[in-house]
């Protein structure tokens, strides 16, 4: 009888335990700096493309085996101090390859203050992400450069002052309106510290939630950089289908290309745009598709000229020519989307066949100018709380004079484990 009583009591207590939890104390958070972040342990295997000019330039006169490996730890540390009206936020990145090689980057360090509940001021280095596109953002005037192969990767922010005003209207077609005004000191500095005041850049964005559609109108004014203006939109047309688009117009944009092995520059006016969709089907498969066009990109013939320039530097056998070609490539042709027309497609299946916390995906980046592509198969698994494994093989394919067919690697296989804290 006593045993039965104990069993019932234990059962009742266990049940009480199941249905109770401690609310994280806001008061404590108010007084302390809260730390969070993640540690990625990454192992990479890459199959070399020895016939590629980029490979030859990068590993010039170093006989290496066909498969290269890299092991590194990426450490992301975030600090947040938030009271009711004031917050200070910090995001850092450290990459550790070994005791002789470590990188450190301050992704964000900014303070924000709520002025009246409808307006905010943000001061410091902040990452902005303008635009509705996933892989590309023609209207991302204040964004860090995005890697279309991994668009969700954390990036370094912009040193700026940002004023935000938001008004909720909720009458008829227009629900919300907000204004963002950003002042960014010129990146052209003297001794890395002082810049000319007249070279301060100004960016502005007007957001409207109009007829259940997100609409942004944005502009960027600068004496140093090209001026740009454009718009974007996003809307759920049915519960399972979202469509989005961006259009940007630029003036006086410097465009670089090679002609007869010499670097040429021209300043052009033009536009770039994208349209895309995200669709969730009844199998819980999400498909993201995007088409992007950029008038300032290289044409197929211009890209071939660039490849020819690199090939000649390799075959010259001259160290100075090799070093100069590498520098030219990094400085003027380092953009992850060098050319004009791209397609992006990502199909991910969340928890297939009831396999919880397991998400396989297929990702394709297709260059429509030269029919080259990169295709990946990222697979993510979160077996226990705060631990994620990612296995991500990628192949780069195309003719020898194409963007992806001329990459220094034929393919790579990334395996990493992320620990969150």
């Amino acid at each position, binding site marked *: 009888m006593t045993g039965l009583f104990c069993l019932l009591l234990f059962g009742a207590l266990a049940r009480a335990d199941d*249905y109770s939890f401690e609310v994280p104390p806001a008061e404590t958070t108010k007084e302390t700096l809260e730390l969070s972040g993640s540690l990625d342990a990454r192992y990479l295997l890459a199959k070399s493309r020895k016939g590629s000019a980029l490979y030859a330039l990068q590993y010039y006169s170093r006989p290496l085996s066909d498969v290269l490996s890299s092991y590194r730890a990426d450490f992301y540390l975030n600090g947040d101090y938030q009271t009711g009206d004031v917050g200070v936020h910090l995001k850092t990145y450290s990459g550790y390859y070994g005791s002789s090689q470590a990188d450190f980057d301050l992704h964000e360090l900014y303070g924000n203050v709520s002025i009246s509940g409808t307006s*905010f001021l943000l001061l410091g280095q902040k990452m902005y992400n303008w635009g509705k596109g996933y892989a590309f953002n023609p209207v991302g005037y204040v964004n860090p450069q995005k890697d279309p192969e991994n668009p969700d990767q954390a990036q370094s922010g912009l040193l700026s002052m940002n004023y935000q005003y938001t008004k909720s209207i909720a009458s008829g077609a227009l629900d919300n309106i907000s204004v963002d005004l950003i002042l960014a000191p010129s990146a052209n500095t003297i001794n890395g510290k002082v810049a000319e005041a007249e070279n301060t850049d100004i960016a502005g964005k007007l957001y409207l939630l109009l007829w259940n559609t997100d609409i942004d109108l944005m502009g960027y004014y600068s004496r140093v950089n090209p001026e740009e203006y454009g718009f974007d939109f996003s809307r759920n047309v049915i*519960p399972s289908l979202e469509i989005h688009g961006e259009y940007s117009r630029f003036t006086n944009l410097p465009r670089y290309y090679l002609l007869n092995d010499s670097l040429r520059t021209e300043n052009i006016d033009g536009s770039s745009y994208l349209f895309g969709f995200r669709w969730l089907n009844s199998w819980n498969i999400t498909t993201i598709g995007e088409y992007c066009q950029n008038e300032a990109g290289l044409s197929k013939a211009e890209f071939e000229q660039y490849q020819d320039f690199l090939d000649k530097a390799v075959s010259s056998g001259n160290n100075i020519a090799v070093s100069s070609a590498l520098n030219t490539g990094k400085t003027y042709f380092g953009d992850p989307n060098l050319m004009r027309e791209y397609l992006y497609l990502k199909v991910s299946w969340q928890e297939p066949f009831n396999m919880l916390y397991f998400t396989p995906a297929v990702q394709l980046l297709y260059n429509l100018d030269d029919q080259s592509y990169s295709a990946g198969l990222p697979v993510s698994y979160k077996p226990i709380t705060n631990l994620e494994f990612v296995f991500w093989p990628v192949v780069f394919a195309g003719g020898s004079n194409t963007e992806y067919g001329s990459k220094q690697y034929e393919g790579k296989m990334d395996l990493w484990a992320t620990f969150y804290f």
Partner: protein
Amino acid sequence: MKKISWLLPLLLISVMGPVMAQDGNQLLKRIDEKLMPESYESYRKLINAEPNGRKKEFVFYTAKKGKDKVAMLYLSPASEKGRTTLRLGDNMWLYIPNVGKPIRITSLQSITGGVFNNADIMQVDYNTEYDVEKTEETESEYILSLKAKNKTVAYDKLKMWATKNEILKKVECYSASGMLIKTLEFKELKNFGQGVVRPSVIETHSPLYKGYLSTMIYSQVKPRSFKEEVFTMNYMSKLEGLRK
């Protein structure tokens, strides 16, 4: 006279039908009001349990205003901390700090995985999304049949059980084809103070996820008024500032 004898019931049905539906909608409105104050803040824990006994847990802070404005902040686990979601009627967004911008999501997706989808987690008042088609009554409870007002709603039909005190007990969710998608059971009536007495536990299971059980536990529900601007995209990255 013969004509009148069959016309009369028809007339009665045509007059009484809308009246009954109106009464049903009034009853649904009262059930909603008993479930939640019009504007409130709450802390919830969501537990996804797998057939092998493994569990995954999330803790949320939620702010709600009016019938259809919900903002939610993930407090744990660390891998999701700082994420926020916003719902304005049919519109839903997800903000991930690393990505740095809100992206549109749909009511049918599930950010947390498990049986609950976004519409379950960011539930708005039932009377905002559904009309009562039929009301039945037994000695101890009301049984309501609900139909979605439009096609943007996650479930086309609901069957709802409530006590005679108008407190929700159970909801069955059906697709347009009549297939049972999931069942929500409301348990453990609790007095949260300031006049809020409601079930503190919602258990959800689905024939589509055999053996899986998702449970939502309310720890605090407190009436609180918020500025309209809290429920905007610009505020999504600043929700932590509301907790005081």
